């Protein structure tokens, strides 16, 4: 169904489940390393392989990260909570149960305010954030799709089994209307920025360290009860989040409009076609037979510890933007442009390295943006660091570079010629400030153009331009033009 028609006839309800792999050095319940991309089955031990007799022990750092995430999401932190076993058979699940949390999550009842592209704020209510362990990875070999159906055989890699995960679940999100896909994307994006600021995860959607499952249902306008939902998995980029929600809305709208029934099921998002396809049917609700994990002691963070962790929370992304807007004296539109250009962090780092906000901003949004555009890359991908930009600005302010030379220096850095100082050295770009050398050049120029010299001596100061130009040419542009002019006038008795 046409999107416009969907939103005219139906209200979408979203539920977003985000799994975040924590960037702890070791796994959730054992001491195995968590490095991404290691040789299969090299980061395993009796515990994460589920060998008979092996027992779990909680990674304290993961609990700490979970609490910090909960606090940053404005959640309440449980004074006492337990792990639970989620029982189901699957080959990549070494114990055939996942150690997770069920009715006693570590964090619950929070919210995240999400800023949409036009500046409107949408509050996303958070139901819970809980700790669990990741599964291993199945690689289905043979068959066309890489999925289990039609595969010749499957390979299992347990390196990921037991990696700490935090699952963050929203409450049902209503009222987004036609902006539902945008809200979904903005939420995941804001969450990603938040987790990055907390330094708890790599938040790489492409590597699976941040994964989003999108629950979508439609209800006819005016109806109170929710419709049947589907859960779309394998949504591996921000853009896909938006596309998957939009696609599901249209697909469900079409089914409902024909008097059909939505099947409660897991759906699979296909990046190339932008569509979803049916996966496992959930009509017969799976019974995970949850019960409290008897191998682990309850987690009971003291109030003191929680408050200590609260004090370690960094400035949160939206608070930081608010502060930056004030510090840099930006209008809402200017700030949004910087955000959209991906320039905020770069400018801030340049400021941190000693430049003024105005100078740092000017370099990044003007010359450097132009360079990035020419190369067809993102600003952040330019091979120049904020510290290097700050150094260039410093050289200009100190009088050793003119603005023109500064651009040359930046070009040199971008071309891989080294640091700004190395480029200055290598390209011989130095403002000539040795007065005797300059004086000699001026005298030479005056001698070469006696008629012009005479005019200046007779008071026609504007004629000095020709001499200045000659000096600049002779010094290959390295002299400070203003200084040359002063010298010319002084030499001519001005």
């Amino acid at each position: 169904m046409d999107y416009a028609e969907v939103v005219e006839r139906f209200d979408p309800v979203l539920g977003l489940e985000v799994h975040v792999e924590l960037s702890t050095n070791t796994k959730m319940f054992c001491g195995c390393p968590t490095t991404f991309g290691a040789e299969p089955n090299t980061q395993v031990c009796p515990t994460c392989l589920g060998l008979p007799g092996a027992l779990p022990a909680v990674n304290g750092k993961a609990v700490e990260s979970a609490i910090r995430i909960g606090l940053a999401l404005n959640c309440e932190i449980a004074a006492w909570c337990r792990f639970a076993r989620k029982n189901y058979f699957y080959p990549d699940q070494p114990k055939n149960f996942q150690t997770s949390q069920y009715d006693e999550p570590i964090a619950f009842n929070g919210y995240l305010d999400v800023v949409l592209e036009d500046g409107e704020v949408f509050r996303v209510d958070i139901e819970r954030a809980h700790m669990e362990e990741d599964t291993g990875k199945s690689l289905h070999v043979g068959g066309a799709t890489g999925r289990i159906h039609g595969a010749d055989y499957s390979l299992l890699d347990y390196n990921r089994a037991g990696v700490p995960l935090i699952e963050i679940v929203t409450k049902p999100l209503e009222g987004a209307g036609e902006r539902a896909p945008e809200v979904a994307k903005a939420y995941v994006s804001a969450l990603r920025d938040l987790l990055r600021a907390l330094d708890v995860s790599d938040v790489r959607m492409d590597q699976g360290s941040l994964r989003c499952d999108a629950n979508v249902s439609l209800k006819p306008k005016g109806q109170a009860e929710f419709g049947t939902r589907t859960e779309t998995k394998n949504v591996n980029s921000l853009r896909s989040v938006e596309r998957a929600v939009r696609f599901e809305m249209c697909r469900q709208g079409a089914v409902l409009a024909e008097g059909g029934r939505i099947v409660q099921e897991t759906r699979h998002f296909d990046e190339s076609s932008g569509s979803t396809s049916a996966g496992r049917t959930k009509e017969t609700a799976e019974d995970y037979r949850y019960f409290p994990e008897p191998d682990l002691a309850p987690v009971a963070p003291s109030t003191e510890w929680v408050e200590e962790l609260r004090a370690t929370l960094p400035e949160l992304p939206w608070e930081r933007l608010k502060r930056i807007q004030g510090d840099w004296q930006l209008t809402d539109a200017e700030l949004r442009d910087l955000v959209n250009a991906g320039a905020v962090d770069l400018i801030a780092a340049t400021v941190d390295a000693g430049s003024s906000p105005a100078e740092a901003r000017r370099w990044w949004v003007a010359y450097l943006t132009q360079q990035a555009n020419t190369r067809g890359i993102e600003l952040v991908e330019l091979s120049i660091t904020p510290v290097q930009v700050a150094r260039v600005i410093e050289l200009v302010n100190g009088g050793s570079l003119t603005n023109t030379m500064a651009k040359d220096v930046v070009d040199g850095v971008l071309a891989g010629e080294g640091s700004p100082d190395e480029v200055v050295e290598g390209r011989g770009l130095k403002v000539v400030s040795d007065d005797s050398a300059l004086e000699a050049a001026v005298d030479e120029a005056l001698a070469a153009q006696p008629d012009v010299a005479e005019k200046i001596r007779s008071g026609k100061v504007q004629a000095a331009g020709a001499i200045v130009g000659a000096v600049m040419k002779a010094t290959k542009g390295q002299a400070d033009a203003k200084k040359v002019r002063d010298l010319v006038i002084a030499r001519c008795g001005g």
Partner: protein
Amino acid sequence: MNDLIRSTAAELAAQIHAGEVSAVEVTQAHLDRIAQVDTAVHAFLHVDTEGALAAARKVDADRVAGQQPASALAGVPLALKDVLTTEGVPTTCGSKMLEGWIPPYDATVTRRLREAGVVILGKTNMDEFAMGSSTENSAYGPTHNPWDLDRIPGGSGGGSSAALAAFESPLSIGTDTGGSIRQPGSVTGTVGVKPTYGTVSRYGLVAFSSSLDQAGPCARTVLDAALLHEVIGGHDPLDSTSIDRPLPPVVAAARQGADGDLSGVRIGVVREFAGEGYQAGVLASFTAAVDQLRALGAEIVEVSCPSFTYALSAYYLIAPSEASSNLARFDAMRYGLRVGGDDPSLSAEDVMSLTREAGFGAEVKRRIMIGTYALSSGYYDAYYGSAQKVRTLITRDFDAAFEQVDVLVSPTTPTTAFKIGERVDDPMAMYLSDLCTIPSNLAGNASLSVPSGLAEEDGLPVGLQIMAPAMEDHRMYRVAAAYEVARDAAQGGPLIHRVPEVSV
């Protein structure tokens, strides 16, 4: 019978450490005994001759080099229940499912034994995955009770108890989920201790029911059990349910108790553990034991623990529930039995099903099904939830009782050893064997069984159960040691010396 195999662990250790006998000689004597009688007893699933002799040689070499013994039990042989992992040595849990599995790691108990210089002779037979009270559920055939080879040695740790009673080993390790150390101790005339839950690491103990399982020492004397208890016990960071406090002073308590003076000790007799279903000779032995405790100076009072009546029912919901989840890992994907794995037409799920069908015995399947049912949505509250409430009530009964008395006593099990085959088709009758032992598993407190004599009607051993509060294990050791001295005096020598010679 050679003196070395009839000696206590304490005596053997003293001789070895004094250089009067070598650890290799002691070990070889026990290996010879195993070779002589185990075809009839079948206490062992695996005898690690080379490993045992190597460990013994190390103890001897250390002594010659002038080093202090690694522990009070260095050089003494031991039989290890096949539910604890042993690096490089097969661990089957009495199941076809793990036939041929060689663990790549040692259980903490195994590691502590090795570090203490204890010589591990081999792995003992058991009911499959520790589910049973007779060792008849072993996939490798039953173990026979040395007192009467037609009878069961108790279970699940029947191999560990029979090895002691057949003088194949002076020490053994058991695990007790509902009585699997104490009931075998009772029916074989040996000492079996279930320490306070959390004081002996479960790391490497293949789980049956995580919240109930507890490894413990088995021996022929109370002091030997205490010495072994101190070798294997103590905090272990690899087990999150391990208690981070010093182990109760059980050896000192056993030595103190040997003075035979129990004046000032208050002992409670559990009213609920008597009457119908209890064999007359068991009750008579128990009554005589209580009289003996009174004669040693203890104050005897009757105590009621009304919730104990529900313990068996609660246990048979909680233990199978946890087992259904713990045993899910046996799926043919990583280790153990694999049925249908070479057939490309079968899915992973098919292979899992076929393997579990072939690999698990009937009792294990029964409990997996009970547990799966009890945890199912819609039944959870009525079954698992209610059982947990009963568990709380039982703990409260213990708390109230221990406000009045220092320890509680009861028969360990309602009957003496029954005939092999007698209860295999009657699970309920089998489950009743653990009637008196289960409450301490549910509450997590300490409990032991010490022999109290022979039942008049069948001449088979009877056990006295002594229960102490959590982390007060030393109390029951003191009482048991005092009783042991008085019993031997009254009965004309150690009960265990009356075991008939095994006819091979």
